[in-house]
């Protein structure tokens, strides 16, 4: 339970970043050093620690604009750096990528032919420039193993991965907010202890094992769902949806364990604030205070984690797709590794890394919309 508090504090530090746009004046304030769990607090990882927002005065409109501009610049720089690293790892580091793709038994002629076909005989900087141009225009080159353009291949697989991630995120949110609020409003009572115990267990369970257990129960024993596979959206929305239910549940339950702890801690933390006491003293009912004041404020750290969980869900789908044999991005990248199709690996990894970066940027921007303190300062 202590960890949840620590996590919350992590989030608040991250949030503080968005509000403490000129926080150097507050450096003499206590700087707390929370423990850090990347499953729960990667938000802080992507933004950095700063003093708690309660210490910081409301930001002005120009300060917010400056923050957003700075954040936009960091976002673009991070995207470029990520693309450079991926390119260096998968294009330059292996030496001749054509040799890696064809394996040790390939003839020099075959290697030379593939080198020319993939444009690997050009200088690295030119190849990187072409890839960047391709990313902007949607021309990602040709897959060696499928012998088709990579972009449509990725789009086709996204039709499985994206709905799966969205379903899992929706389920995570409903479960976590419900359980977190319930636990906070029953603080230190059996309901709270039950939720916290369940979430502690949820944190320890590997999602792929939970997925296997779900298959054992719902596919092998009860036979309500199939053990894997995806019929495609053309086979009817219901059938396709049904095929994604178990994978989404497997992903969501473990993530919900994390988010429920954050929600509980965030709500409890806000409930200890002076303005909540004032609202209660004014005669507002506990329920009214919870809905009108507490939730709005508690939502900021919860939003941070939700944004990051969506990013990690995208990566988590790689595992879930393998457990349930779903033809999504995860399967695509594994087949690409097996076939040494480095072009596909490079583009899928870039897409997943970019998703993490984009979502974190959006979460930062959303603070301005969600946080009541910032809204007030807008006038």
């Amino acid at each position, binding site marked *: 339970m*202590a960890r949840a508090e620590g996590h919350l504090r992590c989030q608040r530090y991250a949030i503080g970043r968005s509000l403490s746009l000129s926080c150097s004046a507050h450096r003499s304030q206590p700087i707390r050093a929370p423990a850090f769990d990347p499953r729960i607090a990667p938000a802080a*990882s*992507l*933004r950095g620690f700063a003093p708690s927002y309660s210490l910081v005065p409301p930001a002005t409109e120009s300060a917010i604009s400056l923050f957003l501009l700075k954040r936009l610049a960091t976002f673009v720089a991070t995207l470029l*750096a990520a693309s450079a690293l991926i390119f260096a790892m998968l294009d330059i580091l292996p030496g001749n990528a054509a040799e890696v793709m064809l394996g040790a038994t390939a003839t020099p002629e075959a290697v030379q032919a593939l080198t020319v076909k993939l444009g690997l005989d050009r200088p690295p900087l030119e190849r990187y420039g072409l890839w960047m141009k391709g990313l902007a225009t949607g021309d990602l080159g040709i897959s060696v193993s499928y012998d088709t353009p990579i972009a449509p291949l990725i789009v086709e697989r996204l039709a499985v991965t994206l709905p799966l991630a969205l379903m899992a995120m929706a389920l995570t949110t409903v479960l976590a907010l419900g359980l977190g609020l319930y636990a906070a409003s029953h603080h230190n009572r059996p309901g709270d202890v039950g939720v916290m115990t369940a979430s502690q267990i949820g944190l320890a369970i*590997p999602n*792929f094992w939970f997925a*296997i257990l779900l298959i054992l129960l719902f596919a092998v024993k009860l036979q309500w769902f199939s053990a894997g596979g995806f019929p495609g959206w053309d086979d009817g929305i219901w059938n396709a949806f049904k095929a994604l239910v178990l994978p989404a549940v497997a992903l969501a339950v473990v993530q919900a364990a994390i988010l429920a702890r954050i929600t509980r801690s965030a709500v409890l933390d806000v409930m200890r604030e002076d303005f909540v006491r004032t609202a209660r003293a004014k005669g507002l009912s506990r329920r009214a205070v919870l809905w009108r004041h507490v939730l709005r404020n508690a939502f900021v750290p919860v939003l941070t984690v939700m944004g990051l969980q969506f990013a990690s869900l995208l990566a988590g789908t790689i595992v879930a797709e393998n457990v349930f044999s779903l033809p999504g991005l995860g399967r695509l*990248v594994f087949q690409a590794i097996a076939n040494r199709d480095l072009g596909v690996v490079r583009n899928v990894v870039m897409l997943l890394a970019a998703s993490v970066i984009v979502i974190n940027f959006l979460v930062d921007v959303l603070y301005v919309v969600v946080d009541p303190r910032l809204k007030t300062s807008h006038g």
Partner: protein
Amino acid sequence: MAELAVGVGPLPSASAWRRALHHPSFAMGGVLVLLLLATAALSWVWTPHAATEIDIAHRLELPSARHWLGTDGFGRDVASLLIVGARNSIAVGIVAVGIGIAFGVALGLLAAARRGWVEEAVMRLSDFTFAFPALLSAIMLTAIYGPGLYTSIVAIGIFNIPVFARITRAAANAIWSREFVLAARACGKGAWRITIEHVLPNIASLLIVQATIQFALAILGEAALSYLGLGTQPPQPSWGRMLNEAQGMMFKAPQLAIWPGLAIALSVLGLNLMGDGLRDLMDPRLARKR
């Protein structure tokens, strides 16, 4: 001056450890972790059967006196595989957390001691590394070097570096703002000496707590990578690999999918509980607040 928060303080004394044994979370987690360590240690000297011994005639047997947890699809003793698999998980955990501590703590201390552009550079670098979860790093490394135990260790280790860099820098900054550091500077001590003599001992307890969390995550990460075929390769036993093999025989022998998952979950639960307990013990105010 400023109060110090969670876990920032010198290493606990012997009496503190005695108090720790009476803390339910720490005690329960400690028992599970000790069980994990003992199992791994036992695997070096004794296993019920040879873990890699294939016995097709006795494949997919149910638990019995001869095979406590039954046998797998190759007739290997599941209990022996689990015992040897513990060794693997611990090895990955230790090395991956070691990589994180060695590089991350050094970077964090450097950032706190130097501040300015060094701190900014270290922090931006850690931000950037977080865009590559262990799974993505492992995918890239596997695409070039092929799957294996070392690939998974490096991938998990790289992900640990920014975690430790961040936590170290935050905690070290807090220590640098204390009066005793000011006094040390007034005495003419340099940044390097202050870091070694004052900062590091004062953030050690926090780093230990963090190490337990990262250890748990490393076990989960290794299991996932092995399950996907990116980590430990056969015939070396691994809990994740066992689950992968068990899934193929789910209709014939569903019990095989239970034991390795349970072993992973109990190990991670133990480390998590121990981490929670340690944090409570190091910051009693937080425990009271809850």
